[in-house]
């Protein structure tokens, strides 16, 4: 396989398109041609995989709709929480950011079979209210259960309290701006961030603003995020069962 300098340049262009969340093959002829070549030319696609791997990336999906790149462990392209929300300084803020992002996933894909659906078929748009309800109702259920068990919180070290209390104690609606944002404010921030990553688009649903998950988000959750999250949770709970077995 003779490697042409022009091929290397084309691969660089393709990677650049893949890293731009707003790039659409239908609107960029060069992107479309590079994707066709990636799909039709096995030598070219082998080179793409090798170069992308060297950069600390992996091709999750590459078809006429676009190229989805994901970072490998320790990659320079890996997202950090400080990149996500620079104003998030405390452990609780970061915990809330993580819970909310998982909450968004769970609202879009509430059942395991939803992750098997075809990503080219749009899922129902979600609203800030629905994500808030997903999280707050779970926290409320745990709050009631803790009352029933007469859990004693006072005197407990901060690290020992459950994560749901952090969400429960944060107000749903903020009165004034400050470092302590309300949960609805954090959810809006998360959806706006994901929209800029090409994971959601803003739509209207029954006259209200809603967020439609994109093909890109579906594949990211389906093929990249869901399983490692599940396995990480199981590892912390010291449970080695695979999905579907618990």
């Amino acid at each position, binding site marked *: 396989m003779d490697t042409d300098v022009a091929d290397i340049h084309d691969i660089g262009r393709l990677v650049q398109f893949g890293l731009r969340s707003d790039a659409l093959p239908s609107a960029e002829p060069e992107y479309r041609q590079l994707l066709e070549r990636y799909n*039709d030319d*096995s030598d070219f*696609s082998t080179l793409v*995989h090798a170069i992308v791997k060297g950069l600390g*990336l992996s*091709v999750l999906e590459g078809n*006429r709709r676009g190229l*989805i*790149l*994901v*970072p490998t462990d320790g*990659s320079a392209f890996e*997202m950090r*929480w400080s*990149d996500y929300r620079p104003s998030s300084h405390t*452990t*609780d803020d*970061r*915990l809330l950011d*993580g*819970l909310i*992002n*998982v909450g968004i996933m769970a609202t879009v*894909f*509430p059942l*395991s*079979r939803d*992750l*098997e659906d*075809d990503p*080219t*078929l*749009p899922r*129902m748009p979600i609203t800030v209210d629905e994500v808030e309800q997903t*999280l707050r109702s779970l926290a409320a259920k745990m709050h009631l259960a803790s009352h029933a068990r007469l859990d004693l919180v006072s005197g407990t070290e901060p*690290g*020992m*309290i459950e*994560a749901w*209390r952090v*969400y429960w104690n944060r107000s749903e609606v903020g009165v004034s701006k400050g470092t302590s944002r309300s949960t609805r404010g954090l959810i809006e921030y998360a959806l706006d961030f994901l929209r800029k*990553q090409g994971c959601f688009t803003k739509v209207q649903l*029954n006259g209200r603003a809603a967020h439609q998950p994109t*093909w*890109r988000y579906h594949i*990211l959750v*389906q*093929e*990249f*995020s*869901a*399983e490692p*999250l599940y396995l*990480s*949770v199981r590892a*912390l709970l010291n449970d080695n069962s*695979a*999905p*579907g077995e*618990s």
Partner: protein
Amino acid sequence: MIAPRYLATLARSGHFRGESESKDESCQCSPRLRARAPAVSFMSTYPPETQDQPVNSPGELEPDLFSGATAEATPIELSSWQAQLTRRLHVLLHADPLLRMRRRDALQDSELRHYDSLLLALRVFDLIIERTGLEHEADQQQVAAALEPHLIAMDGAAQKEPDPERHAKVVDRLIGALRNDDGGRRAFKIRYSAFADNRVLRHHLEFKLLREHFHLDGRTVLRLSDQALNLFLNALDLDIEDAQAAAEAVVESQLKRGRFAEALQSANNALIQSVRYQTKVEDVLRDTRRDIRRVDWREDVPRLIETALDHIHMRVTVEQAIARSAEEKLATISPERPEFQQVAEIARLMVNCQRRHQNLHPHLLDARRVFRIEQDRQAFVPRASLQRPNLLAGVLEPMLSMRRSEASELVNQSAGFLFGARPAHTFSLSRLISWQLRPRRERRADPPPIIDPELEEESPDVFRYPEQVRERAEAYIATVRDTETLSAVLTRAAAAAEPESVLDAIAWLSLEAFAPDPEEGERPLLAIHAGRALDVAGFKGDDLTLIKE
């Protein structure tokens, strides 16, 4: 009563498949089973169904269960009759959401009651079919624009003024009902009963009518499900290939007999069957590109490709013949007659069908190469296992119930796989300098006026007594001869019927003279303790001796 040997034969007949695809959380479906999901026409296999408990106990027959069957009826005839009955029942059940939607029309607000949802729904089906598979597929906006004349006509029939907002509401509601928005856009789920093995069993039928699809141009477009297309075409018992052959045979027959209007309708149906077939093949190739484990490339797909190539070859031959026949007919019809347009349209539709089939041909020939490429490519791609986790019960809920420290640790580890790749930030000196040298923001044309505050010297003591009171009190202090006691000054002021505020000011000025502010410099009056008590005009305390300097 049916003899036991017939029951065994029914069980072995193969018309009733024992496998069922449950749609609940415990699904452990193999890839092979999943490959039989709606990509293939539901008419050629039973749709996914779940079986509940039998209505009758095994072995107990309803008296009229086999009323059409006699002792001489063969097991094949019995099983065939039951299979046909169930298939026809499925077709009728697919119309249930449409009929329910129509029944709800009467329950709408008075301003919306005059719109016929069923009629509009069929028009929507028509619009979507016309554009499926083409570059400009229909989205909701285009459907709304196409329905506008019909909505205006319905307004006119009800003697109402057209209202764009009301029309938008109707279209939203219509599309939402077809899409099953109330059910979370999942499949409609309808319970029904069917005969099987001498028993009546309850089943669930799941299907979609309208679904959305991400178009390559970024729009979200509307498409009909295979079941909706079947319903629209009133195709009862045929699979796609047979339905297409039947439709084209009907066109040929009607064209020969001069029934051009009917032939045109049949040609439209034939085109729809071509669209269905195109979608069926494209679905398999798409599933291969997504995940080759989902498609059975050992037997099912090679058989599909072989059958499809033969089918396409036959179709193209027939369509060419019909198009030729239509063109010959055109030569015999006067252009002014309406039949001329009908026959011309039939020829155009047949050419359209032919083109779709010919376009499929290279995809089918290329399918094996696509499989080999995807097999190589997907070997490099990190893929999730086939078992999908439950994000709500299996991830979020455990996270919330974890200790805060553990949950925080999990969140810290998860940033790398919660989001996609982030373009790495690199410092750019040129960009920094450009940012710093950017032009100043222009001031607004009429900035708000800046009002300088008036500066006033503040002294709380002055404001305690009004100016007039202070002057009167200072006048009494000024009349003090070399030395005089405070009590004497207060007695003089009280005798002159001065108000209490003046007497208070005299006392305060005397106290100020007793403890003067060092920064104020020399004062004209000095006060020292007089050595006796003060009890004059209501003032009590220590008397002071006022000394004029």
